[in-house]
């Protein structure tokens, strides 16, 4: 009896604490339209995604519109981002040929980063990538990209032969290895790519919600527990800083894994 009373302390208004649920990720559509019978709902999330696309496009276009030998502030900012992706991801992972993919990887990094960053930006305060559709589609693009490049480079048969029957393995091992390779390359790769990004953003958002809704709840409690509200608020701030790290890290990981899959598809038989 006492334990139950402690577990759900009742506020002055008589309402207990409601932990954040999936409802936090559902937004009302404020603009509906349909094209060829397909329903489109424009929500806050979609608006933010379109805004991110616009910001990235304008930023990079403005940065590299009139490139100068001695870059201005904007060009320097654009060059720092591009150089980082080009040198430490594209060239390091894929090799010399990776320069060809640097523009895509830079766009991918910027898009994922900005859409994650909405999670801690005031007014936005929900990461776009906490809806599975966005990471899933990005993962699908990566999946199509590396398979297309592999087939283009080696031909359909040899590409799958190399993927399913890696050379230098005793024959009987293929009984075990081939199904594993098949599932891991064609199904697990895109799945984990999407779910990793989604789950990180989802979990981070839930974690922030727990402490922020906890703070507002503790402020309404009419006993000594009120004293813990500042602690909870401080925790929310600390976790926001931690989220900043995760946001950058996940954008980096998504890009580097895409580069790694591309490099695997392009690599010559060894």
């Amino acid at each position: 009896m006492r334990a139950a009373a402690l577990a759900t302390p009742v506020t002055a208004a008589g309402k207990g604490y409601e932990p954040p649920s999936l409802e936090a990720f559902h937004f009302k559509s404020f603009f509906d339209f349909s094209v060829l019978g397909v329903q489109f709902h424009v929500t806050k999330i979609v608006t933010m995604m379109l805004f991110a696309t616009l910001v990235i496009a304008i930023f990079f276009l403005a940065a590299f519109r009139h490139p100068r030998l001695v870059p201005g502030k904007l060009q320097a900012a654009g060059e720092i981002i591009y150089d980082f992706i080009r040198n430490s991801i594209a060239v390091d992972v894929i090799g010399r040929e990776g320069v060809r993919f640097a523009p895509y990887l830079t766009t991918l990094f910027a898009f994922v980063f900005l859409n994650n960053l909405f999670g801690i930006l005031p007014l936005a305060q929900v990461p776009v990538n906490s809806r599975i559709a966005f990471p899933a589609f990005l993962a699908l693009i990566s999946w199509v990209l590396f398979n297309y490049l592999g087939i283009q480079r080696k031909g359909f048969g040899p590409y799958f032969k190399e993927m399913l029957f890696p050379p230098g393995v005793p024959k009987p091992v293929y009984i075990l290895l081939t199904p594993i390779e098949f599932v891991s390359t064609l199904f697990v790769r895109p799945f984990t790519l999407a779910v990793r990004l989604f789950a990180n953003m989802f979990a981070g958002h839930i974690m922030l919600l727990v402490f922020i809704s906890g703070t507002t709840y503790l402020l309404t409690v009419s006993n000594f527990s009120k004293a813990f509200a500042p602690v909870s608020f401080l925790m929310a701030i600390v976790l926001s800083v931690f989220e900043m790290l995760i946001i950058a890290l996940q954008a980096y990981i998504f890009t580097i894994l895409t580069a790694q899959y591309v490099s695997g598809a392009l690599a010559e038989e060894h």
Partner: protein
Amino acid sequence: MIAVVGVTGSVGSLGYGLAAIGPGIGIGLIFAAYVSGVARQPEARGVLQPIALLGFALAEALALIGLVMPFVFGK
């Protein structure tokens, strides 16, 4: 049987605890190896860091999948 009946609330939270064991050990091992690698050869830091972060992300994903599952299959 009695123990199973005795559990109330979301069983998913127990599942998350179990799901976090493996990645917890894994992330510990990854950073232990990274730290000792950099301690032995400080100039190798630049090479080791992306590898360590990559391993960290791969292991962490498992724990996060565990976190999301109760929401997906809850209730």
